[in-house]
């Protein structure tokens, strides 16, 4: 039911949406062009469209979740030019020309998990999983700033996102493991995972750890 096809033409996606016929709302539409997960995308949106709604409804990338609608829970966190932001507190028109990374843009081209994603899987850093994409992207941004954090720093770095299921222990462990893997490989935490085949340095990391 949910569409996550990043190659869908933005124009088509927009015109297929309920209400896009113009029957509803007095709003003009503004064209937004940006790079999403490495792919150029464009869409016509009302100027007041929230970035979170733009991502979910116009781009049809539903891995970005909306939990509180006002910037408290962090479930809607995405990377804008490599910086984590709350997409529910930003407008789509404000990201024109920028580079956006959502949770769908982290795993390698072969589906291999990004080290942060792998950490959450390995350490049971999720139960219901609703907060997980936001946590993963917050962690990517955090590790880009602090590649070698101690446990207290990780705890503080992850305190801007809410999880109701896990009690956070598995999440903190996931970030710790990912920090080690990323340091070893030297990969940019905010970049799509290169995958073992694509990059010699990356290939050395996970393999040598086994």
């Amino acid at each position: 039911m949910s569409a996550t096809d990043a190659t869908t033409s933005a124009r088509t996606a927009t015109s297929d949406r309920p209400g896009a016929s113009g029957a509803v709302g007095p709003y003009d539409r503004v064209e937004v062009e940006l790079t999403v997960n490495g792919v150029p995308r464009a869409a016509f949106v009302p100027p007041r469209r929230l970035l979170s709604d733009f991502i979910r409804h116009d781009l049809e990338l539903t891995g970005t979740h909306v939990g509180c609608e006002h910037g408290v829970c962090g479930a809607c966190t995405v990377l804008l030019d490599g910086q984590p932001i709350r997409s529910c507190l930003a407008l789509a028109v404000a990201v024109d020309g920028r580079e956006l990374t959502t949770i769908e843009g982290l795993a390698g081209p072969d589906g291999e998990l990004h080290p942060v994603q792998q950490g959450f899987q390995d350490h049971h850093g999720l139960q219901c999983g609703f907060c997980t994409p936001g946590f993963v992207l917050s962690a990517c941004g955090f590790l880009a700033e602090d590649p070698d954090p101690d446990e207290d720093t990780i705890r503080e770095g992850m305190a801007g996102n809410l999880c109701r299921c896990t009690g956070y222990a598995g999440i903190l462990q996931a970030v710790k493991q990912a920090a080690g893997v990323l340091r070893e490989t030297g990969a940019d935490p905010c970049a799509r995972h290169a995958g073992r085949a694509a990059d010699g340095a990356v290939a050395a990391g996970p393999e040598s750890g086994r």
Partner: protein
Amino acid sequence: MTTTTCGPSSTAATGSAPAVTGSAPAVTGSAPVAPPGTRERTQRRVRDGLGTSADRPDGTPKVTGAFAFSSDLHDQRMLWGRTLRSPHAHARIVSIDTSAAAAMPGVVAVLLAEDVPGKATFGLEHTDQPVLARDVVRYEGEAVAIVAAEHPETALRAIRAIEVTYEPLPLLTDPAEAATTDPIHPDGNVFRTLPLRHGDVDATGDVVVEGTYEVGMQDQAFLGPESALALPSDDGGVELFISTQWLHVDRDQVAACLALPADQVHLTLGGVGGAFGAREDVSLQVHVCLLALATGRPVKMLYSRAESFLGHVHRHPARMRYRHHARRDGTLVKVEAEILLDGGAYASSSTAVLANAVCFAAGPYRVEAARIDGQVVRTNNPPCGAMRGFGVVQVCFAHEAQMDRLAAALDMDPVELRLHNALKPGDAIITGQRLTGTAPVREVIEAAMAHPLPPDPREDEPAIALPGGAGLTARREDVRRGTGIAVSIKNLMYSEGFDDYSTARVRLETSPDGEPFATVHSACAEVGQGFVTLAQQITRTALGIERVVLHAADTGVGSAGSTSASRQTWMSGGAVQLACDTVHHGLLERARGVLGVPDEPLVLEPGRVVDPATGAEVAIAQLLRAGPLEATEEHHHAPTSTLDADGQGDAHVSFAFAAHRATVDVDPDLGLVRVLQIATGQDVGRALNPRAVIGQIEGGIAQGVGLAVMEEILVEDGLVRNPSFTDYLIPTALDMPSVAATLIEQPEPGAPFGAKGVGEPPTISSTPAVVAAIRDATGKALTRVPVRAQDIAFGEAGAIPPTAGSTSAG
């Protein structure tokens, strides 16, 4: 090794989270008990079978964003539904004018109470809640009208365009007045009154301590708001994709309200963003289906966070008055309690919540006599129902505070007092029911106390480690440390004679590549707890294969019951086991034919069936060439009885125990608290997936800590003042203490694989442990949770027992 359970004897050490430092040897009492139907069992372990920390099958889709939550569902033709809610806690509806809303472009339907084709009300135990209010609203947020529109903002503007004239009615917001106030509902204001009389109710002790305690209204605060997609089906029925805890009870309520036969209402579980009890009741289920049938189009509904706070039930606020009698040596003589729960406007599961509060009012202790009077009433406050711990959370806060008061009065170590009175197998609880299963109360207490205390504060610790955190408000020299302990008993599964069951279908066949695989079909709602992992583990172990596919949870198979009451591992795990046993039996029958050994006891090993007498074997894949093997089985637990007029009876199936020791730092002047550590011992029967068990323990403790120090829905004159995550606080990573856990593994007789449910106990006694620790640090009485800064800074002093464990373990 004759049973399918093969967990390590001490599983805490295998938990991957290093915060879990527990590695005290797990106590194994009775010998493992073979569950029924295990005459011939897998002799060698299959990969990722029972007892291993197998990965979640939904782990990868959840970390990549591919997992579809119900809020992600979409249909090209869909409309958006929205609910108009009452702004009043109690009012008469004088008139409703929908003409302006209905005339708005893009609005397709506006429905009121008279548009409900079937039963006008719904409810889990008593159908007393209107689908849409007709003449009166009884709480803030009660649904009055629903609309469907082409765009979500059109739907929002449409409900704002509905003109409702209300005439406010007198408010009933004090539960103490409910029983004597004019009824605010035709069914009256008292949901249930439950007296319990046990032993010599006139007995007295040498030492008597009294207290009055209060528990505030906690919210489940799951992260994924209520959402669903309903599609009209070709037969005139409806297809509903929904995040819920109990598909079949939703279906039955939807069908009744829509006047449809149950088989025309088909439900499929959408991805669930947490539950914790809040999704056991109907919220938007009937509304979204009504709109789909009225418009003939798919309809999606999605609550906002504020609407979610108004749209689901909460934990019952409680007022409790206690009196404990004991002999000089600490032996409990009698527990007296009056328990009043505020059920809010509608019944939900209030009657069952009260039963738990009354049955476990004395805690996990031997008590010769008890006189308990419980009542749960209707008010104009928000409706309350299920939340993790279900009635036991409230009384545990009170009885554990009482135990500390008693320890102080006796000048006895609070741990010693608890050990002295701890229930053990064969003892009776205050309902007269004997503990026929495991009851490692002493063991969980000793395990919690055996963990090292957190290290003393370091001078160079960052300011964020102080109470109050990064605000730099607490001064290090003002901070005082305290520790406290609390212990709990919780019933597992449903009680009071309810014939609880779960259904599972297992099909074993070969894939096109020739490899055998099994498909498990269960309606069990995966809400994050990890049943999907467990179902695979059970099937792998039982059938000796690695590939297990999970059919979507839906109403195309029989009910699995609710994902609540710590029951799904036992109930639905048991159902999967039974279905696997039948398939297993079929495999062995085929193997006897193939091997020509009609009477030999054969053994299933990973991938094959072996004749141990001759060593002859046949591959499972070969046995399946004759076609798939499929079985559907229902699993019922042992029957229970109702409670008699004195609250006596064998009303419960099984019990789980936990102990928590909390360590806190407090700034007494500013009333700031930092919870440093929770050490726990928990009775788990057997840990079937140790990593998942630890996850339940850590997550449950987070919710218990939240109730202790921050979580409360503030209700003034029936109106919710803080329906947002800005104002309703839940613990962040910085608020969460480290957790040191020891799993006590004593296989429970009668339980599939000996495993007990583990979800609720961590939430129950962690709260009173934290408050006991704050009392220890501050000397304040703290008779109410959540503890607020003003309670610490300005609250009354209380009787403080010697620091927990200082004499016994120090």
